């Protein structure tokens, strides 16, 4: 307990200094909690959907690319030895209309005499549907719409709105309750009929005996399956959705890794200073009998207390930030994620991270404190710091830099997972900071030259004082470097991405209105399609200039899952895609002639370039298409193919319309909207106006950039607090010297200049080096993400942003110096010289 009492007193003695460290720990804990709770929530939501949909199947038979196929194949599969059960899968997105309200839902087909097709569902009221016009409805959905057993809701289907009778209420056994909408259970043959997919299934799930080996089974099924079908382990289906998540998660994880590293550095520098300052005290303790281990424990207790403080304040902040991130991710993914993150996880993470940062950062200072000899306490501290950089530190720095370069190269070439880039990032920053002592001499001389010119003798003194405290100066520069480079690195990356998203939307959204049955499902399941005649009805409306019908289908492109988007390119004068290179007019012509444009992520993954051909498989159809161009895509993780609708219909049999894009005559937009809204309501469709989409995107971008600015400001403030800390320490340590200087005639103004000069040296080096590191960081984040996702987001170098950060950084450093400088100037020479 004595450790904690001592630690507590120490914290009380220098509240300002410990507040700085606490703030940095709070920020790091909050960032990590927010990011992890958002990531975990999104992952869990996905997992629940897949569990609910793929049940407990051991294997599934699907078409290459995911289109539907004839269920007749089940007979052949049944003959393969070891098949325990086969469950046909048929899922369609729909909208359920109650008396007053409507809701999105997933219509799931089941086979009444196949008990396995109900796995994971349990009937809580009424009975299972027996007739084809009966449905069982998920309890949450039923209560939301006020439906009971016997109610007669309508369902939006491919053959229009159909009325069903509720025969029972079901409840999933797993917690698969997304707000996205509930589940509606109906007889398979009935659903197939209303969705105009007679005998078609999305997949066949296969249950194997307990002891069966899935891989052996896959090869035995492959022998009986036609070439367009394949057997696979169910989870692989999540691939498309996972890609969408990965980009966001990698960026978020990078940001939290940076805040973690910065916090470790700030805490490390504070502890090193504190231990340096308490050398005599520690030596005295040692002399009166404290063992080395006790001294280490004492310092660790301080660190632990601070870690706990950081955790206590950081977790609520992180939980709040997490809920904001979840909303942002939800709008990125165009779905509603469950709002409440798993708080246990967040608290657990925060509780570990806070103390971990502090204990990690205090380890080296604690060891240093333990090595203080008892005799040191008895003599005045003359020169406790080494003036030459340690060789070992420099060597570790060089090795670290080389290692991070290798990791980054590995990620860029695709040999390593993208998370290796985060490790590389941290290692490179730490290595750079370790190299500062070795580089400081020449750099200070360089920076000091103009300083000496401007400040004269005071400039020269500042320069020498900075060099005299090599470790302390290096740590301060390191903290500034971290704060500035992290700000510029993530800032530039975020700006590049948001800029890219905006320009993508600008080029690809050519319509004024979007009409579709429902928001695109996050799983990429097929949405209910609308009839083609509806399009004609739309075109005939007054004020409508153009109607583009879009069909979407999950296909297999060169062995990868992708979303095929077929549209009427003949309607356009300009290609409505964000092309990467290529002449837009030529590409448009080629698209009309039957070529495809491939999304950048997909293109990178399957290695196609303009001029190649690409085999696209949809259900039983397959065809080779020339690749006209590569385009930037953000939806479905960028795994998108564009084809002309007529071509897709003819060569791949892609039918139905999933979205109508409506372009209005500019003068009639206002009048058209209420008419379209009424039409949408009548047919149970969703109308989105372009301006509404813009609003959504803009608010998302504003939210992200707003959050970024807050983080940047916090980062710079923490850097500034670090400078206050260092300069205050320098002034305290130089009290006697300042007293003597005042005695022999140094003016207060000159003293102020000396302290400001130190800030200028530290600030200029830290901020400028940080800007340089930040820019290369931004570039490498860009390259790493680009090569992994195949989408080379154009690197937007924003000179005004970098300049703003540099100026703000320097301003904060100089502002931070004012307090210690005034303190130094106000020292009375006599008092100062009395100081030991």
């Amino acid at each position, binding site marked *: 307990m004595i450790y904690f009492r001592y630690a507590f007193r120490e914290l009380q003695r220098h509240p300002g200094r410990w507040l700085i460290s606490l703030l940095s720990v709070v920020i790091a804990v909050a960032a990590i909690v927010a990011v992890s709770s958002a990531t975990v929530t999104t992952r869990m939501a996905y997992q629940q959907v897949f569990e609910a949909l793929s049940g407990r199947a051991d294997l599934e038979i699907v078409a290459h690319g995911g289109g539907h196929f004839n269920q007749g194949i089940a007979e052949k599969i049944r003959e393969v030895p070891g098949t325990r059960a086969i469950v046909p899968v048929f899922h369609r997105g729909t909208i359920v209309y109650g008396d007053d309200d409507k809701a999105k839902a997933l219509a799931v087909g089941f086979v009444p005499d196949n008990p396995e097709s109900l796995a994971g569902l349990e009937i809580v009221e009424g009975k299972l549907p027996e007739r084809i016009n009966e449905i069982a409805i998920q309890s949450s959905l039923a209560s939301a719409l006020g439906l009971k057993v016997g109610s007669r809701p309508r369902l939006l289907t491919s053959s229009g709105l159909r009325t069903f009778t509720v025969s029972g209420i079901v409840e999933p056994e797993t917690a698969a309750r997304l707000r996205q909408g509930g589940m509606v259970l109906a007889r398979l043959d009935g659903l197939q009929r209303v969705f105009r997919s007679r005998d078609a299934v999305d997949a066949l799930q296969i249950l194997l005996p307990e002891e069966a080996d899935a891989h052996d089974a896959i090869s035995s099924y492959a022998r009986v399956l036609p070439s367009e079908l394949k057997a696979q382990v169910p989870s692989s289906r999540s691939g498309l959705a996972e890609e969408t998540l990965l980009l966001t998660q990698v960026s978020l994880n990078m940001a939290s890794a940076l805040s973690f590293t910065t916090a470790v550095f700030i805490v490390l520098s504070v502890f090193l200073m504190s231990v340096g300052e308490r050398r005599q005290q520690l030596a005295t303790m040692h002399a009166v009998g404290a063992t080395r281990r006790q001294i280490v424990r004492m310092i660790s207790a301080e660190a632990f207390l601070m870690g706990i403080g950081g955790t206590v304040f950081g977790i609520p902040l992180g939980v709040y930030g997490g809920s904001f991130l979840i909303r942002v991710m939800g709008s990125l993914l165009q779905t509603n994620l469950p709002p409440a993150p798993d708080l246990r996880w967040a608290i657990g993470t925060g509780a570990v991270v806070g103390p971990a940062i502090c204990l990690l950062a205090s380890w080296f200072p604690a060891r240093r404190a333990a090595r203080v000899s008892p005799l040191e306490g008895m003599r005045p501290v003359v020169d406790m710091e080494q003036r030459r950089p340690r060789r070992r530190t420099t060597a570790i720095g060089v090795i670290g830099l080389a290692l991070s370069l290798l990791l980054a190269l590995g990620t860029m070439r695709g040999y390593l997972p993208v998370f290796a880039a985060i490790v590389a990032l941290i290692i490179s920053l730490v290595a750079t900071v370790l190299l500062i002592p070795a580089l400081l001499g020449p750099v200070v001389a360089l920076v000091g030259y103009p300083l000496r010119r401007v400040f004269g*003798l005071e400039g020269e003194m500042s320069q020498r004082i900075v060099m005299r405290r090599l470790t302390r100066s290096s740590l301060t520069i390191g903290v500034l470097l971290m704060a500035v480079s992290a700000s510029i690195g993530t800032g530039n990356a975020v700006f590049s991405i948001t800029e890219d998203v905006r320009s993508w939307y600008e080029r690809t959204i050519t319509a004024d209105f979007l009409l579709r049955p429902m928001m695109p499902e996050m799983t990429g399941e097929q949405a209910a399609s609308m009839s083609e005649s509806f399009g004609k009805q739309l075109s005939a409306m007054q004020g409508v200039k153009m109607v583009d019908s879009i069909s979407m289908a999950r296909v297999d492109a060169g062995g990868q899952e992708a979303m095929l988007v077929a549209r009427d390119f003949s309607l356009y004068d300009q290609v409505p895609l964000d092309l990467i290179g290529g002449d837009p007019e030529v590409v448009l012509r080629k698209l009309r002639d039957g070529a495809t444009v491939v999304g950048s992520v997909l293109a990178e993954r399957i290695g196609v370039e303009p001029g190649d051909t690409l085999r696209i498989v949809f259900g039983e159809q397959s065809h080779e298409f020339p690749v006209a161009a590569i385009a930037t895509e953000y939806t479905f993780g960028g795994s998108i193919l564009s084809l002309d609708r007529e071509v897709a219909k003819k060569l791949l049999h892609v039918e139905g319309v999933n979205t109508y894009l409506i372009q209005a005559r500019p003068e009639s937009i206002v009048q058209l909207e209420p008419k379209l809204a009424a039409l949408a309501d009548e047919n149970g469709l969703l109308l989105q106006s372009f301006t509404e989409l813009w609003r959504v995107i803009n608010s998302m971008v504003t939210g992200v950039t707003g959050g970024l600015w807050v983080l940047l400001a916090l980062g710079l403030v923490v850097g500034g607090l670090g400078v206050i800390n260092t300069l205050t320490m320098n002034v305290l340590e130089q009290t006697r010297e300042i007293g003597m*200087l*005042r005695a*022999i005639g*140094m003016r207060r103004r000159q003293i102020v200049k000396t302290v400001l000069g130190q800030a200028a040296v530290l600030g200029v080096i830290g901020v400028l080096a940080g800007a340089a590191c930040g820019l290369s960081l931004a570039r490498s984040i860009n390259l790493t993400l680009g090569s992994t996702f195949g989408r080379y987001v154009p690197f937007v170098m924003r000179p005004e942003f970098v300049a703003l950060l540099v100026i703000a950084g320097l301003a904060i450093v100089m502002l931070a110096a004012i307090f210690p400088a005034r303190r130094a100037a106000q020292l*009375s020479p006599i008092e100062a010289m009395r100081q030991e």
Partner: protein
Amino acid sequence: MEHVIEAHGLTKVYEGEVAVHALRGIDLFVPPATFVAIMGPSGSGKSTLLHILGALEPPTDGRLLLEGTEIGKLSDEERTLLRRRRIGFVFQQFNLLPIFTAVENVALPLRLDGVAESEARKRASEALAMVGLEHRENHLPSKISGGEQQRVAVARALVTKPAIILADEPTGNLDSAAGERVIAMLRGLVDEQRQTLVLVTHDPAVASRADRVIHVRDGHIDEDSERPEEEIPAATGARPPR
């Protein structure tokens, strides 16, 4: 100007829980080219007197004139400039800047006063030569002995050719040989450069080299004795400036 230092009824009270009367009405008149030694037990007020004489802190009451200038009427800035140009300090702890070499430390008061670096360095070299340390010019304080450090401090005190040199136990941290050398040097400054030296010491041997010895006790001047010139040992060790 008859006296370099002219003090009338200097009083210093340190306020606190218990007020400490460090000086209780000191009158002191020092003519030019005089070596005054101030002696007295610990806490007698001798260091306080020296600090007030050096314009480092103001008296609570009384008047102080240095070279005819009334110190009480000066602003902090003016006092600073007066210290820089007319007073040289030598401290017991040497108080050299560890970041500067010997010659840079000596040049410091000149550079603070805006003297060009080359000129300041030249004059600092001359001052170091006067104290016999020309071979230590480019050494950092941590690389030379205590005696040498104190001689650097003396060189710093005399580089501006001040009218008054104030020394607070300059030999307190030195062995007797090094102490003797420093005192001989200071004596030489008074005899040859006609500067006024006020020196606080505990050491009767050091006081024996002074023209006048003042004993301070409980904030009063207890005894003020002038010594005939023939009794004072001659200066040794200091060389005339080149």
